[in-house]
């Protein structure tokens, strides 16, 4: 079983990438489980054709934890991808990080962490112990950073590098950085910048996903690109990503950049 985690700044297109990746992996005949680890619970929505599935923490909130069965938290979407959303508290109260930890413990107890590939889609703005959970205790062994060329997106990716480097030092840790996925925001010179970032942290750019209007069109139709426009070039990019990930054996411990180095890097690639 391959367990991968996609981390990145909120709003960067991480969930879109994760859903299309899962769809492409499913097309390859693999059994895929996608777990959204973000209180806004929209990771799997396109795989579920727009429906908001009940979250694991909804069940906990309603006191059904003890009698919970897998079919109350795992829902089948496009390509038979099994979809789970962790969910979380209302904004401003409680602890979403602790919610992620509780979700993992619950899924484990339900024996739901199975399949050929598990894709963890994790909010990367907050790198507290809870949101680092997928990287800990032998869950995700391969972490992919999803980033655009925007400075704050790179900053979040760099922060996650720090978490990976820290966790890699633990005796039982198997968590490693598997690469960087560039998700284009339409900036000039963006691919070169993301590639350079990947090099500087001693990793590699797995793929650069160009910005393409078909992604928005697919979302309006509540589908992944793989399902909505299977013959499009963008679908081809996602399939290429899926293939690269399945074949990837290059795992390493990143070298995070200082804030000064990160800013200098962004400066180098500023359009004239």
């Amino acid at each position, binding site marked *: 079983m391959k367990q991968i985690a996609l981390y990145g700044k909120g709003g960067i297109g991480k969930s879109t990438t994760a859903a299309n990746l899962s769809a492409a992996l499913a097309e390859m005949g693999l059994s895929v489980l996608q777990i959204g680890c973000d209180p806004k619970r929209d990771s799997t929505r396109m795989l579920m054709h727009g429906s908001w599935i009940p979250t694991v923490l909804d069940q906990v909130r309603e006191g059904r934890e003890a009698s919970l069965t897998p079919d109350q938290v795992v829902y089948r979407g496009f390509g038979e991808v099994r979809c789970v959303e962790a969910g979380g508290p209302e904004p*401003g109260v*409680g602890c979403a990080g602790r919610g992620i930890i509780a979700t993992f413990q619950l899924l484990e107890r339900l024996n739901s962490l199975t399949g050929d590939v598990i894709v963890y889609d994790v909010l990367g703005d907050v790198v507290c112990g809870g949101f680092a959970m997928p990287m800990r205790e032998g869950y995700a062994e391969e972490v992919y950073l999803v980033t655009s060329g925007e400075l704050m997106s790179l900053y979040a990716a760099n922060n996650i590098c720090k978490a990976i480097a820290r966790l890699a030092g633990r005796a039982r840790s198997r968590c490693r950085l598997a690469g960087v996925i560039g998700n284009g925001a339409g900036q000039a010179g963006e691919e070169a910048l993301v590639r350079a970032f990947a090099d500087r942290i001693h990793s590699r750019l797995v793929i650069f996903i160009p910005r393409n209007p078909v992604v928005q069109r697919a979302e309006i139709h509540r589908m992944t690109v793989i399902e909505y426009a299977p013959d499009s070039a963008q679908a081809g990019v996602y399939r290429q990503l899926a293939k690269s990930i399945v074949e990837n054996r290059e795992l390493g411990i990143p070298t995070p950049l200082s804030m000064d180095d990160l800013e200098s890097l962004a400066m180098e690639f500023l359009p004239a």
Partner: protein
Amino acid sequence: MTSNPLPWSSSRLEGCTLSGALSVTTEVTDGISVVHGPAGCSQHNASLLHATLLGEDIPHLLRILSSDLDEAGVIFGGEGALAAALGEATSRGPSAIFVLSTCVVQTIGDDVEGVCGRGWGVPVIPVPGSGFLGGGFQDGMRNALIAIGERAGEGKGKGKGEGGGRGNRDGGITLIGEKNLEADVEENFAEVSRLLALLGERPALRFIRGISWDSLAGLPAGRLNILREPELRPVGEAFAARFGTPFLDSFPVGLSGSLRFLREAAGVLGADPSRALGEERGRQEEALARFDDLRGERIRFSPTPGHAAGPFTRELASSLGLVPGEEGIPLPLPTPLPVGTAGLVRLLHRWRRVLHA
């Protein structure tokens, strides 16, 4: 952020705010202390208090109720659990409820004051603290004294004692912050009472030890507050600002300290201390004479780290004719230092046992 400087310390003085606050709030005999947090936080503290009091032959049944915060409460917020606990507490008919919060409650950002202020039909007083995040035992004690003092007697009768205001100084002397867990607490009370009696006065209010909520209503009208120790100065200052009550910052400590206590108390109370000072000097001389057999003994002190006992030990050694030096027999110094002349006598008995063992 807590600045607790002694991570290796197992002294209860450097424990968590919860222990310190509970050592105060549980002394309100008709109150209930609600600990908002996991059940373990209240269980550990209840065990500590119970065991300590039992060691002093006080079979005290503590009125502590936990909000029993569980994992769902941590994830989604624990305000519902606190509200449920307050509902349970009010159903038992207390005169006041004190709400103490724990580390996790602070971490998840519960609006404890908001829940306390919902109108429960009985004073519900949030005590700042947040477990160890709010500091140590002393901070918890200070916070509890101030929080309760601000609302002392609220709800008593009709409009009486509603937190006070300045002006009415017809009350008596209030002892502030007695150390309810120390072994000599009653002996110390008796000694302070004895000294005040020399001035024709007596403590009118023990804030807070074994007392009902309504009785605390006398706090604002007090003429003089006497703090148990200087660490409670913020409490004395808070009550001086709110009620206009002057304060002495410590129970009497040492020979000259006991005389100074009499002078300062007399100054605030408008009494002539001459006769009291004469009587106390005589008592001190008589007490020292009973330990004349210790004269010339070579001694040294083995204080606990950070013990600020220099002036106390120098004066006592000099008065007794003890000879301090590195080669001397180590003598124990208690924390806190003994109160008044009676406390000194108890200490000197201990020293005699050590020196003549």
